[in-house]
């Protein structure tokens, strides 16, 4: 290699690394700053007045926040379950059945919430629920209506995750099971389901966090007494910086990170084990 080429690859390598590092700094600096300032003793947002756990000590006494946390966790759990079930069915329909009536419309509707501005989904769903309530007398706005919105949003994300996994699936495995006499439903529960369980877990985690995070849909769909955690945080954040939000944020970020990293490790481990099992089966 000539000296010039060497210099050129060296520069390219350096530039590439610098770009990646700068990008990660951009992505992580706000999160780090948020955590650091949660330990600030001063109630002023940007004045550092020494380290303190003051805001953490006040968290357990914040009734509004605690009620929000409890409500949000419930909604997140139920909507993750709903979204994963519907998302799995939608992915099956899209991957297994290449032709059915209205497939293009179906695919479009599944994908739309990925990009559709949330204000539109929120407003249209709300006005429909209001019309329903006027003619049928239900549903009352509250936890149930927020759940509906979150399932709708989460279903789109769950479908993307599960669909990708289903497309990668080796069809020979299912065929082999069928050849060995398994009925379709047995094939599903004994072969397909264990193979896609990782995708189901990550779809569950993703939709759970999405629901835990949503402001706009909850703002449109909530009712009296159903103020979710993001709504509590948002209404306080609008007024300015408050260290108690930083403390709550740090706790949320810590919990979510632990769960996501744990979940990912679980997925990597089962994936490896399964790959080893398949390899062993092929050798035999």
């Amino acid at each position, binding site marked *: 290699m000539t000296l010039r080429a060497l210099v050129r690859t060296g520069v390219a390598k350096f530039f590439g690394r610098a770009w990646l590092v700068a*990008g990660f700094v951009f992505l992580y600096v706000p999160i780090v700053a948020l955590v650091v300032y949660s330990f600030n003793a001063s109630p002023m947002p*940007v004045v550092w007045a020494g380290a303190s756990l003051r805001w953490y000590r006040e968290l357990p006494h914040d009734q509004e926040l605690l009620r929000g946390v409890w409500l949000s966790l419930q909604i997140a759990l139920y909507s993750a379950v709903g979204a994963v079930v519907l998302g799995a069915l939608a992915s099956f329909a899209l991957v297994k059945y290449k032709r059915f009536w209205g497939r293009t419309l179906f695919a479009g509707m599944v994908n739309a919430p990925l990009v559709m501005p949330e204000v539109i989904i929120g407003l249209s769903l709300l*006005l429909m629920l209001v019309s329903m309530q006027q003619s049928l007398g239900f549903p009352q706005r509250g936890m149930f209506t927020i759940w509906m919105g979150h399932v709708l949003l989460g279903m789109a994300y769950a479908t993307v995750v599960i669909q990708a996994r289903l497309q990668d699936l080796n069809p020979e495995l299912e065929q082999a099971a069928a050849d060995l006499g398994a009925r379709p439903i047995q094939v599903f529960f004994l072969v397909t389901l264990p193979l896609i369980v990782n995708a189901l877990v990550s779809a569950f985690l993703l939709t759970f966090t999405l629901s835990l995070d949503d402001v706009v849909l909850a703002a449109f769909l909530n009712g009296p007494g159903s103020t979710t955690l993001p709504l509590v945080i948002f209404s306080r954040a609008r007024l300015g910086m408050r260290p108690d939000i930083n403390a709550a944020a740090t706790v949320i970020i810590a919990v979510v990170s632990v769960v996501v990293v744990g979940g990912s490790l679980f997925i990597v481990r089962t994936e490896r084990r399964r790959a080893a099992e398949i390899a062993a089966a092929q050798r035999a």
Partner: protein
Amino acid sequence: MIRPLVTRLFDRMHAHPLFRAHSRKAVISLPFVWLLIFMLLPFFIILKISFAQMGIASFLPLTQFKDGVLALNLDLTHYQFIVQDQLYFRTYLNSLKCAAWTTAWCLFIGYPFAYFMARAKATVQPALLMLVMLPFWTSYLLRVYAWKGLLLNGGLVSTILIKTHLDWVLLQAEVITERGMFMNTEFALLVGMVYTYLPFMILPLYATLSKMDGRLLEAAADLGATPWVGFWKVTVPLSKAGIIAGSMLVFIPCIGEYVIPELLGGPQTLMIGRVLYDEYFGNLDWPMASSVAVVLILLIILPLAVFNKYQAEATEVRP
């Protein structure tokens, strides 16, 4: 013990003629019906309401049957108002402009990022991918809120920008109105948007770039292309699906963004998501809010179709 029981149950269920005939239908129709009711029907309802007249407490019905005459009352004043009113026109235009700038910056930062990520050692790639996705998992509301602290007077980013005199450049670019003041400006809004939507750009780009066959670049080099030419003539065209999917994933939701303008852009920001929200919650004018939403849907329907075409190709991430 339990397994044979379950298997027997499945057997009987599966032997049932009803199940045989309808399992395919059930798999398709359950999510289909759900989406028809909660995704499609609401759009027709806001379309209907957008043509309704506002009564005292709620809007009036569109059709009226009286003395054997069926009357259809379509109130077009809301649309007239949107078209004629300068403020609405400027707000739509400004939303499109803001979304376009956000997309351009995300592409500018995200493309090299995804490119270098895809060319990093195979062993570190899953870790890099995890690092891009982790902020995506942590609350976006909290991450936008965090920028408030960085951009306020005395905040970290604010201080750096003032020390490096970059605030002068920003003033010349007319994204801030006064040196040293960053909160509630176009600049703050753009930073928040780019920051929030950057992972949405990186992930599809990385997915297409990491699937690319490296031998194609070698072939180009053998045929005499410099790396620069090879990049523009081979790499970029091959990542077209990722570029389009990523751009749409950023552009479309940005147009109607509500939280970021509300927290970072300040009260004078002209963003259509905010206007819609205020029209509903502030003025309680449902027909007007519906009309604003219908026009917004018309604006995004074309990009949405483009997105659907390229989505399947590009959003698959293989670590």
